[in-house]
C-alpha cells in the first residue's frame, strides 16, 4: 500500500534541499549529459528520510568513487555487480534488528531511521542481478530498487544487455554485413518485477522531473519493496549529443518507446504525458523522431534497412496497446 496523501514537490523547496545536501558532489566522473547523474539527484530530492545507498557495479559506481575520492555525501556501499539487492536485504534486516533493540540509543553519532535505496544499471538488473532482485522482492524487504536503464553495458564499453532495444548498434551487436545491430527486443523488466506482487512499481523519465520525484517518493513510502525503472540517456553509448539528453528522454515518452506509468498494488495507472497520449492518440509521435537523434540507430535510416524502423514501430505500438488495456483505456 502507498500512503494516500501524495507529495507535491515544490520547486523552490527542492532548490533549497539540493543546495543544502547534494547526494553527489561536483567533480564526479560521469560523462557530460549522463542521465544517471540526474536520476541520483532526483532520488535524493525525493527522499523523506536519510538514505543508505547500495550500488551495483556500473557506471555510477566507477564514476563516483575512484579511490581516494568519493563524490557521495550519503552512506554508500558497493559490493559486486549481481548482488546489490541482496546487500540491500542485509542492510535492511540489520537496520530493523538494530532499531528494534535500540542498539545505538544514546549514541548521537548513529542514525538508524533511514531508507535503503539500491541502484543498478540495466546489466545489473535485467541480466546478472535479476536473481538477487527477485529474491529480495519475494522476501518483501523494504528497499527501493532503482534501475537506471541506459540500455547496454556502458561501463565496459557499450556491449548489448537484456535491456538493449531492437536494432541498436553495440560492440557485441555491431552493424555487420548480415546482422544489423541487436536482432532482439528488450526484456519486459517491468512485467517481471510487477509479477512479484510488490506494492509499488513505476517508470520514470528524468525529463519529467515532477512525475519522477513523486514516483521516487511513493517508492520510499511503499510498505515493502518498490521498483523504479528510470530511463537514462547515455550520450557516449548512444551516439547522441550531450545537450540532447533531456530532449531524448522526453521523446522516448512522446513516442511511447518508454511510456510513463505506475503499478500500485497491481493496478496500472498512466502518468504525465502518457495520459494525454492515451486520451489523444494523435499526440503520439512516430519513433523516427526518437531514433534519429542517436547514432546507435543511424543504420536503420538507410533505405534497405527501413524495415527495421517499421519493426521497431510495430513493437512500440503493440507494447503501448497492451499497456493501455492494463491501465483501463
Amino acid at each position: 500500500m502507498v500512503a494516500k496523501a501524495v507529495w507535491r514537490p515544490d520547486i523552490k523547496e527542492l532548490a533549497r534541499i539540493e543546495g543544502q545536501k547534494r547526494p553527489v558532489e561536483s567533480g564526479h566522473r560521469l560523462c557530460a549529459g549522463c542521465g544517471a547523474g540526474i536520476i541520483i539527484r532526483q532520488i535524493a530530492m525525493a527522499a523523506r528520510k536519510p538514505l543508505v545507498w547500495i550500488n551495483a557495479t556500473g557506471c555510477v559506481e566507477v564514476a563516483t568513487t575512484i579511490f581516494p575520492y568519493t563524490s557521495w555525501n550519503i552512506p554508500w556501499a558497493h559490493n559486486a555487480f549481481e548482488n546489490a539487492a541482496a546487500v540491500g536485504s542485509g542492510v535492511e534486516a540489520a537496520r530493523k534488528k538494530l532499531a528494534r533493540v535500540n542498539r545505538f540509543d544514546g549514541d548521537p553519532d548513529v542514525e538508524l531511521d533511514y531508507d535503503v535505496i539500491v541502484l543498478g544499471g540495466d546489466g545489473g538488473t535485467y541480466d546478472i542481478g535479476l536473481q538477487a532482485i527477485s529474491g529480495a522482492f519475494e522476501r518483501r524487504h523494504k528497499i527501493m530498487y532503482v534501475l537506471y536503464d541506459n540500455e547496454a553495458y556502458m561501463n565496459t564499453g557499450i556491449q548489448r544487455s537484456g535491456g538493449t532495444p531492437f536494432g541498436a548498434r553495440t560492440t557485441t551487436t555491431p552493424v555487420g554485413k548480415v546482422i544489423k545491430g541487436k536482432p532482439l527486443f528488450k526484456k519486459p523488466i517491468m512485467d517481471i518485477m510487477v509479477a512479484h506482487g510488490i506494492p509499488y512499481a513505476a517508470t520514470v523519465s528524468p525529463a519529467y522531473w515532477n512525475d519522477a520525484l513523486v514516483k521516487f517518493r511513493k517508492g520510499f513510502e511503499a510498505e515493502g519493496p518498490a521498483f523504479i525503472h528510470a530511463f537514462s540517456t547515455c550520450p557516449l553509448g548512444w551516439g547522441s549529443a550531450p545537450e540532447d539528453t533531456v530532449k531524448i528522454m522526453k521523446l522516448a515518452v512522446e513516442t511511447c518507446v518508454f511510456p510513463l506509468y505506475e503499478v500500485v498494488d497491481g493496478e496500472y495507472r498512466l502518468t504525465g504525458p502518457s495520459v494525454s497520449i492515451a486520451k489523444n492518440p494523435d499526440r503520439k509521435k512516430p519513433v523516427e523522431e526518437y531514433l534519429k537523434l542517436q547514432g546507435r540507430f543511424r543504420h536503420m535510416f538507410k533505405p534497405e534497412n527501413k524495415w527495421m524502423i517499421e519493426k521497431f514501430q510495430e513493437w512500440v505500438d503493440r507494447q503501448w496497446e497492451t499497456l493501455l488495456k492494463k491501465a483501463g483505456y
Partner: protein
Amino acid sequence: MVVQKLVSQTMMALNGDEAVAWAVKQSNVDVVAAYPITPQTIIVERISEFVHNGEVDMEFIRVESEHSALSASWGAALAGARAFTATAANGLALMWEILYITASTRTPVVMAVVNRALSAPINIHNDHSDSMGARDSGWIQIYSEDAQEAYDNTIMAFRIAEEAMLPVMVTLDGFTISHTLQNVSVLPDEVVSNFVGIRKIPRIKLPHIYGEKEIPLMLNPKYPISFGPLDLFDYYFEHKVQQNEAMKASIPIIEKVHREFAEISGRSYEPVHMIPYKTEDADVVLLGLSSTMSVVRKVVDELRSEGKKVGAIRLRVFRPFPADMIRKELSKISTVGILDRSLSFGAEGGPVFMEVRSALYSSSSKPTVYDYVYGLGGRDLPPKLIKKAFNELLEAREEPEKPVIKYLGVRE
C-alpha cells in the same frame, strides 16, 4: 590441556551442525542470511526453529542462493550488525567472488563451512576441496576436530573476526562431524553472551572529511562513508599488502581469544594454531586437519605401544598459516607425512603439503616430506591405512626415494 572449569556446563547430545547453531543462538547474532545445502542444512533448520519459537532475537534472511547469503551478510555487517552465514561445497564455490570482497573490505562476517567435496561428479560427502579452494580469499580459517570444537570455534570466531576486522571461516567435516551425535559441553547462555558481548563498532578518523572526530565505521547517515570504491593501480597494491598485514596481525588475536575462552570453558586448544601429539621424540610425524586427526592419534598410541616412535600434528588454523610454528615443530623430525583431503590438480602435492613444505624450505634441517592424499568424496580412512602410512614413513627414513604424492585408500 584442560584448565579448571569456572562455570557449570550442560552436557547435550548434539551433532556438529546443531552445535554450531547452538553457538550462533548464544552469541548475540543480529542477522543470519543462509541457504540450505547438504550437509550444512541442519544449521539453517535449527536456527529457523530458534527464530520461530522466539528463542532468539535475530533477523534470519532465507536467501535465494549462497551468493546472496554472503552478500546479505556483508550488507548487514556493514550496517552495524553481527552477521553469520553457513554453507558447504558448491555453495561456498558460488560465494567465491564475495569471499574476496568480504575480506578485502575488512568485514567481520563469521561463516561455518561444513566441508564437502566439490562437483563434478556431484558428491555430498566430506573432503576439504571446498575450503581449501577458498584459502587465498583472505578469510581466517579454523578447522574443527569434533562437534565440541565446532561449538567452541564458532563462539570464538565472532570475537576474532571483530577484533581482527577479518571474516572467519569455521570448518567442520561433513557428516563425520555435522551429522554425528556427540556429547557437547554447552556453556550457559549468559556466559557466552558476556564472552562475545554485543558487536562493538570500531571508530575511525577521516581527518580530511570529519576532522579529529572519531566516527563509527558503518553505514550511517550521521557520518557517511563510501565502502567498496573503485581502486586503480595507484592504490590497489598497497591495500592488498595492508590486508596481508591484517592477516599476520590476527595471529596474536586468535591466541588471546583462545586463552580467554579457556578461562570460561575449561577447554584449552593450546598452542592454538597447531596441536602436536607425542612429537617430542618422534622419528616420523603425520600432519593433517580436522576429524581425521583423532583417529591418527589413536594409531599413534597403538604404534607407540609397539615401540615405534611416531607422532601427530593437527593443524587448527590454516589461515593465517602458522609457518614459524610449523618450522619449529618439524625441525627435529626427519620424515613427515602430510594428510591432504583435497587435491591441487597438476601441482606437486595437495594444499597442506605445499604450504608445509614451503615453510620448511627456510629451515636449516629440511625434513623429507611426503603427501598422502586421502578421503576424497568421503572415502574412509581406516586405522590400518594410517598405520600403513606411518610404516612407509619409517621405512622412508632409511631410503628416502619414494614418490612425493601417495594416495591412501584409492583403488588402483
